[in-house]
């Protein structure tokens, strides 16, 4: 009897699992499928390709437009992630370990930034960056990315830092290490997994951005892939860009899929740990 109920429960949960997986994967599989279709079968309305081709991928990697955008995307996201994680780690360490007035204020400010409507910055940043010569440059995008990634980094990292056995730090200090040394030599290695998880989350955020990328760039100098995608027109006026757009879309989805496949546990723990306890 007991065995039977668990089997039935398992089947029921299994069915629910399948629904979730299908719901999550269908749009991704669909755009991948489109990217492998030949121009002739592109408009047949079938979910799976009848004729497979890699031409779409060849096309996009032959065009400067896409390759430049890909380089921009990778470079900007990596630099912004690095800076945001370093600054975030410093602040998170102070928040989780040190007692100082203004701590509450900093937590409050990062919360406000997390809720800040980014579109409100579009007009003023456009004008400010034009005046400073930052418009349409890498730093022009990296700056807002760092800003909006910082709350995420600070919250996730302070949650991680609170789980670290801090007695080790005390031990290091008793052995004559300064607070700074204790941070660099003892705590930083222990915090590495948390830093890594945070880096993934921040990278996903920067990789994803469209609003800043489309308003603060105007040429291939700093245009990232999501924006380039929306401007794809095909090689000639008469060519349908659908295949190329889908291929480019698949290319920028690959890193996300890899992160999710290999670091699912970390991403989930990173997102949930920051959430409940603030």
């Amino acid at each position: 009897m007991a065995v039977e109920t668990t089997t039935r429960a398992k089947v029921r949960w299994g069915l629910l699992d399948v629904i979730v997986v299908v719901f999550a994967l269908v749009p991704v599989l669909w755009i991948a499928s489109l990217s492998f279709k030949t121009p002739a079968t592109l408009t047949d309305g079938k979910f799976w390709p009848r004729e497979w081709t890699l031409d779409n991928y060849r096309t996009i990697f032959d065009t400067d437009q896409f390759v430049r955008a890909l380089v921009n995307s990778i470079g900007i996201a990596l630099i912004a992630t690095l800076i945001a994680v370093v600054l975030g780690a410093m602040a998170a360490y102070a928040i989780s370990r040190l007692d100082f007035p203004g701590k509450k204020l900093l937590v409050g400010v990062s919360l406000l930034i997390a809720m800040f409507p980014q579109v409100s910055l579009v007009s003023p940043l456009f004008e400010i960056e034009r005046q400073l010569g930052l418009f349409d440059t890498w730093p022009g995008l990296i700056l807002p990315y760092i800003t909006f990634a910082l709350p995420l980094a600070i919250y996730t990292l302070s949650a991680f830092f609170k789980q670290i056995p801090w007695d080790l730090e005390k031990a290091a200090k008793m052995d004559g290490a300064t607070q700074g040394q204790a941070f660099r030599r003892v705590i930083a290695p222990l915090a590495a997994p948390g830093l890594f998880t945070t880096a993934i989350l921040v990278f996903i955020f920067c990789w994803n951005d469209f609003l800043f990328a489309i308003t603060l760039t105007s040429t291939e100098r700093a245009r990232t892939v999501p924006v380039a995608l929306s401007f794809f027109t095909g090689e000639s006026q008469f060519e349908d860009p659908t295949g190329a757009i889908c291929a480019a879309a698949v290319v920028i989805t690959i890193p996300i899929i890899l992160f999710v496949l290999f670091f699912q546990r970390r991403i989930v723990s990173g997102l949930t740990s920051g959430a409940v306890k603030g």
Partner: protein
Amino acid sequence: MSVNATPAGADVAADETATRGGGRHAAVPTQRAGRRARAPLSENKRAERRLGWLLCAPAALVMVLVTAYPILYSVWLSLQRFDLRFPDQREFIGLENYVTVLTNQFWWTAFGVTALITVVTVAVELVLGMGLALIMHRTLVGRGIVRTAALIPYGIVTVVAAFSWRYAWTPGTGYLANLFDGSAPLTERASSLAIIMLAEIWKTTPFMALLLMAGLALVPEDLLKAASTDGATAWQRFTKVMLPVMKPAILVALLFRTLDAFRVFDNIFVLTAGGNETSSVSMLAYNNLIRGLNLGIGSTMSVLIFLTVAIIAFVFVKLFGTAAPGSDDGERR
């Protein structure tokens, strides 16, 4: 306007450090910290404070410089007639831009669209997200697979997902377009809005679910077992045991998703480009700036959107008080 108030406060705090902490002991405190047991408490405290401020300063500075300054600047811009196509006509015109925007029918249409999308998507996401959270938390089989699959919509670039939906509903190309005999759903207002909401819900339900799952993890198993022994049905266990414990997590999730939904832009840009009166306020602000190059009007919209979001956040925090995220963070070390 609390954002504008904080940077000033931060500066005051920083100044205090400079005067109280002083450069006098610049090299000393690190040594003192090493000999915590012997050093007088106040010295230690001071060193700790200084280190705390030093570590937080860069992050605080970046956040304030990139948000508070531009938003103040956009208040200034919003009081001017400032069209980049006619830079000579730039002049201070007081609140005229606000009158122009607030009496404009496009603004209110976009505002209505944004509000509709926000309310509908957040409500649907709360229900679906709760279901997904329960599945991810309690499923007996394939927990890893389900969590991995659910993270894909969260991680995927919104523009990519939007293109997938767009092609899915494009007549001829799409597998969904034939559901409604031969019509082109993305060329009509109601169906366009429905598709935009579908795309939003698909993309952000996992995030909602993850936030809710964090709350689910706080529900004690014993409590559920006890309720079960006392004869509570599954629904009663959910409403009487789980929901009360999860309340803070639910409020956090609702707050973040509401504010996020209000910023809807990417999906609309790709799916309809704002055609057929499907523009959100973000779309409208973008169009005014990039297509219209009208900084005055664009900034006015920026300020109005900022105020709306501030009001939403304020109402949430007032209504739910201490349940607001981060509100108890200061007390913890």
